[in-house]
């Protein structure tokens, strides 16, 4: 989904001279063609995330639509105050793009994980938070952020994720996608971990359970209208993020505000990650792969 998103932004930027792209020294083999085509509109800020984000804010003040780009934790927590003060407080047209959501960087280790970013970013004022499910949602996210002004955080997985959607979609602000029509019980997932959640749901449906899969490209704003439906009994949220403060927490807050009677179960990473392993191993270890989710959800149904 990373390449799909970048290719779409690249394509749009060729026609929109206001788009600038600032990377935090990341992009080998991924951004090369865009860099060549955008010329001076592309800039490597170096290993300097505060500078990258502050400069993007300045560019937006001077009329540009500026992207920042780096690995999970770096364009977000490493420079959280520049995101908070410079970008969000001034409501500027800056698109913060991270790659390697959750534990995608695997054996690179915890320093390269994005497991607190949703909690941090979704509390900031004026910001929208987008986590695409698959390359189709990522491509739609690129179009969405290029068409809309204001601060946005786009949290991408890595590369080579399969498509879950069957055809092209367009994002609507704060809207989820239902993949199976109406169900009493739904698994709502944000980001590329939805691949596992969808597989778990498909198995359960094959066994005759009434359960549907919903992807949530928007963590903020959250789809309040969707959650405010009387027929929904049980919701299972799935995310590649710490359990506290992330997508499941956002759904929990919304359900509470709606005074809804939905029974919510949140699947997320535990408070501590103390093993070194690749992404698939970690997700399996924490019960967040298709098999683990299938077993847990089956039990809860």
């Amino acid at each position, binding site marked *: 989904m990373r390449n799909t998103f970048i290719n779409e932004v690249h394509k749009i930027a060729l026609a929109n001279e206001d788009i600038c792209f600032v990377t935090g020294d990341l992009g080998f083999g991924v951004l090369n063609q865009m860099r060549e085509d955008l010329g001076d509109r592309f800039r490597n800020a170096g290993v*300097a995330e*505060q500078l990258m984000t502050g*400069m993007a804010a*300045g560019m937006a*003040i*001077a009329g*540009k639509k500026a992207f920042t780009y780096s690995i999970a934790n770096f364009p977000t927590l490493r420079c959280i105050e*520049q995101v908070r003060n410079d970008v969000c407080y001034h409501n500027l047209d800056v698109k913060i793009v991270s790659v390697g959501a959750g534990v995608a960087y695997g054996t690179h280790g915890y320093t390269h994980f994005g497991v607190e970013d949703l909690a941090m970013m979704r509390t900031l004022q004026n910001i929208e938070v987008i986590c695409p499910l698959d390359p189709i949602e990522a491509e739609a996210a690129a179009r969405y952020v290029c068409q809309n002004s204001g601060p946005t955080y786009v949290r991408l997985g890595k590369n080579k994720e399969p498509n879950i959607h069957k055809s092209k979609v367009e994002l609507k602000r704060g809207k989820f996608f239902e993949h199976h029509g109406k169900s009493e019980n739904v698994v709502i997932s944000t980001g590329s971990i939805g691949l596992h959640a969808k597989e778990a749901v498909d198995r359960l449906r094959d066994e005759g359970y009434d359960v549907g899969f919903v992807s949530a490209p928007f963590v903020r704003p959250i789809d309040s209208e969707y959650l405010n439906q009387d027929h929904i009994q049980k919701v299972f949220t799935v995310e590649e993020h710490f359990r506290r403060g992330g997508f499941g927490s956002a759904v929990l807050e919304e359900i509470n505000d709606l005074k809804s009677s939905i029974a919510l179960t949140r699947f997320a990473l535990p408070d501590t990650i103390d093993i070194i392993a690749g992404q698939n191993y970690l997700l399996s270890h924490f019960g967040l792969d298709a098999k683990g989710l299938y077993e847990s959800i089956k039990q809860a149904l």
Partner: protein
Amino acid sequence: MSDLKTFVKQIRIDTLNMVSKSGASHIGTCLSCIDVLGCLYYDFMNISSENLNDLDRDFFIMSKGHGSAAIYATLANKGLIPKSYLDEYCCDNAKLAGHITYKENTGVEVSSGSLGHGLPIAMGIAYASKLDKRENKIITLLSDGECQEGSNWEGFLMAPQMGLSNLLVIVDYNKFQGYDKTDEVVDFNNLQDRFLSAGWNAIEIDGHNTEQISDALLNYKNEKSKPSIIIANTIKGKGVGYMENTLEWHYKCPNEEQLAIAIEEVRNS
């Protein structure tokens, strides 16, 4: 508009009144940079109520946001914000906050207060201006203590590489920071050398001598390849004898009697 000396004097008086009336802090840091602000806004910068929203206006970013009263008073004397705003400075529901806060159509470009933010923002504006081939000036004012922030060094290292000759950084080197004398925390006596070796057009001046300030601004205006930095040697609390070179007037607020003495001294200077 009045002559430069009267302009600067009135900014000092307005600032003293604002801080005293509101019970706010930071009068010392305001007074140290007012001569620089006065020179910038008197006739150097291309900014007026007519071009406030034009991208080719000159930009000034007050990175030392705690000097807000000084820049608000400057903008008011320039006619960019109503003088009545100054009377409510730092009051409940005021239009002007204790750390400079963005407000449309006032000439305040960005909110600051957390230090180390102004330079990267100014660099982004300067870079975009270069991309669009505008000839405007992008200026940011930093405190000396603020130069300890790592984000500034990210910018100090990168600005020459980016060829931002339209960028001017002014350091208000008033020798005091929040809890100590600046040079006792980090010795900045060799600041000019550090910037020269990093590829900047760096000059050091007396930040209260308006001729030196004007010459330095002209030097920046004529620079065609490097970013410029002016290290302005200033006196914390400048213009009010009992405030000068003291740490306490970073925080204290003059009472009515002290205010009268201060204004009298500024008037007679």
